[in-house]
C-alpha cells in the first residue's frame, strides 16, 4: 500500500532528507520510502510513482512529504515515526576523526606543531632519508636514528644540512642529548660543561654516564653516525658542524669526540677544527693507539671510553688527569681475582663477552685482544678473527648482539633482551668458558629491567659451571646514571644477586676479565709444570 503523510511547515535540507529516505527504507515492512519537500518536481515524481494525488495536492514547497510504500498501515506509521525521529535527531557526536587523530605525515604534523625544531626519525632506512630531507626542507634539525640509509643519501642530506645550518645527527645514530633532553637511547645525565660528539650510541652513553658519575655533567651530546668520520666522502660533516656549534656554545667548556678511527684526511680536519675551536678537547678513536699529545695543542687523546670521560672531567675541573686502571685499590682487585678464580676448572680457558652495545663490545674485544692476541668477534677488524658464524662463539669471543645479523626482524637487544638470554643459555654447556663479560645499558629507550631479564641466564651459566665442578666468574658493568628510570641501584643489586661482579665501567670489567684470564693461564702453566 502507498501512503502519504504531509507535515506542514517543516523545512529540511534536501541532503538530510535523502539520508532520511535511506534510513526509513530500513523500517520493517517498508518497500520504498521518499521523504522530501513538497516541491512541484517531487510531487510530480511521487504522482508518477502512484501515490495519491489528492493527498499530495495539499503539500507546498514548505511542507515535508513522507511517502511510504509498505505492507500495512502499521508499517506506514512506523516509517513515519522513523522519519520524524531521523529528522529530529540531535547531532551525533563529532566523528571528524581526521581532525583529532595523529597527523599522518611530517608536513601535517608541522601544521599542528608550528614551533617544532627537531625531527626524530626511526623509520625503515629506505623511507628515512626522504623524511629527513623533508624535515631539513621544513627547517628542522634532524636526528636520524635509522640505519640502512645509503651513503649517497647521507652525503646529500649532510650537504643540505650544512647549507641550511641545521644539525643532521645520524644516520645510524642511537643517542643524543640536546638541551638536557635524552633522545632515543640516552641516559638522564646531569647538565654540565662537557660537550660530546660521538659516532655511535653506546659510546656516547658510556662516556656521558661516566661524566655524570664522576660528578660533572654534559652540555650537549651529538650523535654523528657511524660513517661520519670513517668515510672520506661523508668527511665528518656532522662532527665538524658539531665542533663549530660547541665552540660557540658558552656552556660547553670541554669538547669530546668519540669515533672509530677516522679516515686519515678526516682525522686531520677534526683535529684542526678542535684546535680552531680552542676549547680543551678529548678525542677517543676506538681501537687506535692514542696519539701522543702535542704540547701546543688543546687536543688530548684518550685510550678508552672511561679515560675519555675522566680526562674530560679533569679538564673541565681544571685538574690534572691521573690515569688509573681500576677505581678500587689494587688490593681489592687482587682479592676479587683470587676469589673469582679459585674454583675455576682446568678445562675453562676462554673469555666470552655477550654485549648489547656496539661500542662497548668493541672496547671489550680490543682490550681482550691486546691481552691475548686471539679474540674473535663479529666486530673484529682483523678478518682472521671475524666470527665465521656470529651465532656461534669460538675460543675467546666477544659478540655484539646488536649487529644487523641479529636484529633483522627482531628488536635490538637493548630493547628485547631475549637474544642475549638465548645465546647465554645455549652456551652454558660450553666447558671451555672461563669468564663472561656483559654490559647492561639502561636509560631511556632501553628495556625497563635489563638486569632482571638476563639474571636468570647468568645464574644458569654459573650453575652449569658449578655442576661440572668448576666456577664461572661473570663481570658486568652498568651504563647508566642514578637519574635513569630503571633505577641504577636496583639494577646493580639484581646483578650482584645473580653472582655478577659489577665494575664501575665497561673498561674496568674488561680489564678485570683479562686479569682473570692471565691468572687462570698462569695457574694452568704452573699446574702443567708441576705435572711434569
Amino acid at each position, binding site marked *: 500500500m502507498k501512503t502519504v503523510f504531509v507535515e506542514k511547515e517543516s523545512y529540511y535540507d534536501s*541532503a538530510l532528507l535523502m539520508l532520511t529516505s535511506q534510513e526509513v527504507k530500513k523500517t520493517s515492512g517498508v518497500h520504498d520510502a521518499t521523504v522530501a519537500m513538497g516541491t512541484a518536481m517531487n510531487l510530480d515524481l511521487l504522482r508518477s510513482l502512484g501515490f495519491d494525488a489528492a493527498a499530495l495536492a495539499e503539500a507546498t514547497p514548505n511542507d515535508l512529504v513522507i511517502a511510504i510504500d509498505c505492507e500495512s498501515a502499521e508499517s506506514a506509521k512506523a516509517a513515519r515515526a522513523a522519519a520524524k525521529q531521523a529528522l529530529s535527531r540531535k547531532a551525533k557526536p563529532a566523528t571528524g576523526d581526521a581532525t583529532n587523530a595523529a597527523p599522518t605525515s611530517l*608536513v601535517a604534523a608541522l601544521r599542528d606543531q608550528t614551533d617544532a625544531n627537531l625531527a626524530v626519525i626511526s623509520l625503515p632506512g629506505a623511507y628515512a632519508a626522504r623524511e629527513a630531507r623533508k624535515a631539513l626542507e621544513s627547517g628542522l634539525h634532524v636526528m636520524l636514528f635509522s640505519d640502512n640509509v645509503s651513503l649517497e643519501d647521507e652525503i646529500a642530506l649532510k650537504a643540505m644540512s650544512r647549507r641550511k645550518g641545521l644539525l643532521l645527527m645520524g644516520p645510524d645514530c642511537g643517542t643524543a642529548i640536546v638541551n638536557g633532553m635524552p633522545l632515543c637511547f640516552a641516559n638522564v645525565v646531569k647538565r654540565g660543561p662537557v660537550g660530546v660528539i660521538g659516532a655511535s650510541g653506546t659510546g656516547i652513553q658510556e662516556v656521558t654516564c661516566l661524566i655524570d658519575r664522576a660528578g660533572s655533567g654534559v652540555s650537549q651530546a651529538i650523535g654523528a653516525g657511524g660513517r661520519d668520520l670513517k668515510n672520506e666522502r661523508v668527511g665528518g660533516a656532522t662532527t665538524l658542524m658539531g665542533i663549530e656549534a660547541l665552540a660557540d656554545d658558552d656552556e660547553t667548556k670541554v669538547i669530546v669526540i668519540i669515533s672509530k678511527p677516522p679516515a686519515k684526511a678526516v682525522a686531520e680536519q677534526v683535529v684542526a677544527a678542535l684546535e680552531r675551536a680552542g676549547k680543551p678537547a678529548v678525542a677517543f678513536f676506538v681501537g687506535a693507539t692514542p696519539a701522543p699529545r702535542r704540547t701546543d695543542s688543546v687536543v688530548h687523546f684518550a685510550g678508552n671510553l672511561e679515560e675519555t670521560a675522566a680526562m674530560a672531567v679533569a679538564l673541565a675541573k681544571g685538574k690534572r688527569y691521573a690515569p688509573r686502571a681500576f677505581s678500587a685499590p689494587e688490593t681489592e682487585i687482587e682479592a676479587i681475582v683470587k676469589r673469582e678464580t679459585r674454583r675455576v676448572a682446568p678445562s675453562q680457558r676462554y673469555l666470552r663477552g655477550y654485549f648489547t652495545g656496539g661500542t662497548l663490545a668493541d672496547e671489550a674485544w680490543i682490550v681482550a685482544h691486546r691481552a691475548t692476541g686471539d679474540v674473535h668477534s663479529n666486530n673484529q677488524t682483523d678478518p682472521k678473527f671475524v666470527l665465521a658464524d656470529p651465532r656461534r662463539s669460538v675460543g675467546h669471543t666477544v659478540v655484539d648482539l646488536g649487529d644487523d645479523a641479529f636484529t633483522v626482524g627482531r628488536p635490538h637487544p637493548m630493547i628485547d633482551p631475549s637474544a642475549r638470554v638465548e645465546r647465554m643459555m645455549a652456551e652454558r654447556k660450553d666447558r671451555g668458558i672461563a669468564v663472561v663479560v656483559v654490559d647492561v645499558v639502561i636509560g631511556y629507550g632501553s628495556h625497563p629491567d635489563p638486569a632482571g631479564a638476563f639474571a636468570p641466564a647468568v645464574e644458569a651459566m654459573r650453575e652449569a659451571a658449578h655442576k661440572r665442578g668448576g666456577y664461572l666468574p661473570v663481570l658486568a658493568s652498568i651504563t647508566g646514571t642514578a637519574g635513569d628510570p630503571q633505577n641504577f641501584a636496583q639494577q646493580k643489586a639484581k646483578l650482584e644477586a645473580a653472582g655478577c661482579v659489577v665494575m664501575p665501567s665497561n673498561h674496568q670489567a674488561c680489564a678485570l676479565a683479562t686479569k682473570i684470564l692471565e691468572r687462570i693461564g698462569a695457574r694452568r702453566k704452573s699446574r702443567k709444570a708441576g705435572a711434569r
Partner: protein
Amino acid sequence: MTEQSRVEPVTALFKSRLSVVNLGLASFADNLAAVGAEVVQVDWRPPAGGDEVVLAALDRIANSEIDVEAANKKAVDILLAAKPTLIDIGVAGEVIPGMTPTTVLHSGPPVTWERMCGPMKGGVIGGLIYEGLAKDRAEAEALAGSGRITFAPCHAYGAVGPMAGIVTAKMPVWIFENVAFGNRAYSTVNEGLGKVLRYGAFSDEVIERLRWIEAELYPVMKKALKRHGPIDMKGVIAQALQMGDEGHNRNRAGTSLIIRELAPTLVQLGEPVERIVRILEFLNANDHFFLNLSMPSCKCALDAARNVKGSSMIVAMARNGTDFGVQISGLGDRWFTGPASMVEGLYLPGYSAKDAAPDIGDSVITETAGIGGFCMAAAPAIVKFVGGSPQDAIAYTTRMYEITLAENAAYQIPALDFRGSPTGVDVRKVVETGILPVVNTGIAHKEPGVGMVGAGLVKPPRNCFRDAVLAFAEAYGAAPASSRSNP
C-alpha cells in the same frame, strides 16, 4: 668542508625547548613526553603506499636541477593573484576562439563519440538539434558518428561546462576575464534542474529553454552587464563562502548574491516587466545558477597558472563520464586519465545507485581552484554528503591542506577560524600522501535526458595522478638513482 658554516641555528637549538616531531618508534615520543619535551607522534605510513616506482620518480623530482618548489610557488601565486571578473555575455561561435558551427565542446578530457557515456551522448544530440544541424535523435546520432562534427574538450577552448558540458556555436556564454593576467574563460548559462541538456536531456522542453535563453535571457543580460559593469567574482565567491556555499554542490548564497547584484540594473533596462519577471524567476528557481559563474571564475584563475616550467600544480581536473583527467602546469596540455568513478552519494526521491552514471563534468574545476569540496567546512548545510556532521566536513577540508601548496586569504572558511581555503593541488603530494582531492559532485542519470538523480562525493582514480607524477619525473627529474650512485 672548509667553508665557514652558519651554526647559529644549532647553538640556538642547544638553548631551545625541544619541540619534536617523531617519525617511527612511538616509545621515543613517550620518553620525550615523560621528560617534558613537546612532542608529536606522526601516524606514519609509507609514502605513495610504498609504491617503489612512484617513490623513485618522486626522488628523481626531488633531486632535479629544476627548483620545483619555486616553480610551484610561482604557479600558486598566479592562482592566488587571479582576479576573475564577469565582463560580458556573448555567443559561443563569435567569442570563443576557434569555435566553428560544427564544433561541439564537451566536459572532461577528450573522448570520441563512440566512447561517450549516455548523458554526454544525450547532450550532444540536444546540442546538434539546438544548432539546427539535426532534426531528431536519429539524425543527430548519425551526424555525431559521421566524423563531420569536431568534438573537443571545453578546457581546450578556455571553457568549462557542468556535467556533459555541451557548448555549441549558437549558445550564449558568460565571458570572464582574469583581469590580473588578461586571459578569458567561458561557460554557458545554467539551465536549471530536472530535464536539462547538461544531464543529457534533449526533449522539446529542453531545446525550447535553450532557445529562450538565447532569445530572451541573453540580450537582456548583455544589456544588464553593460549597464552594471564588470562583476568581481572573487568578491562574490568570498562572500558566498561566508554564507554557507562551497561553490560547487551548494550555490544558493552565490545565486542570491548575483540576483541581488543584478536586480536593480535589470529593472532599469526599460524592458517589459513580464520579461524581467521571467528572467528573475528563472534565476530564482535555480540554486545552481551560480555554478556556471563559479566554474569559469576558477577556470580563468587556473589557466593563468598553466605552463609554469617545473610546476607540479594541477591546473585542471575534469571528467567526461568515461574518463577522469588531470592536467599539470609544467606538463602543458597533456591529459592524464583514469576511468571515471561511480559517485558515493545520496539520491533524490525515487532514484538509487543503480540509476547513476559515472562521474561527469568540468565542475571539479572548483576543487582544482580550492573551493567546492575543498571548502566543505564552509557549507554545513550539505555535510550530509560527507558523513553527517560539521566535524566531518571540517575533517575533509583539513585533509586538503596536506595536498595543497597555499591558503587563499581571499577565500576564508568561518568554521576554521577564517583560515584561507586549501589552494593549488600539488600532484606530488597527492601521490605521496595517498590523499585524493575531495570532489563534490552531482549525480547524473545514466540514461540520457533523465537529469540529476543525486549528489555526493567522488573519489578520482588514483592512476591519473600516478601517471602524471611519472611523466613529471621524465620531464624534469634527475637521472634515475641507479645511474647516479657511482661509487
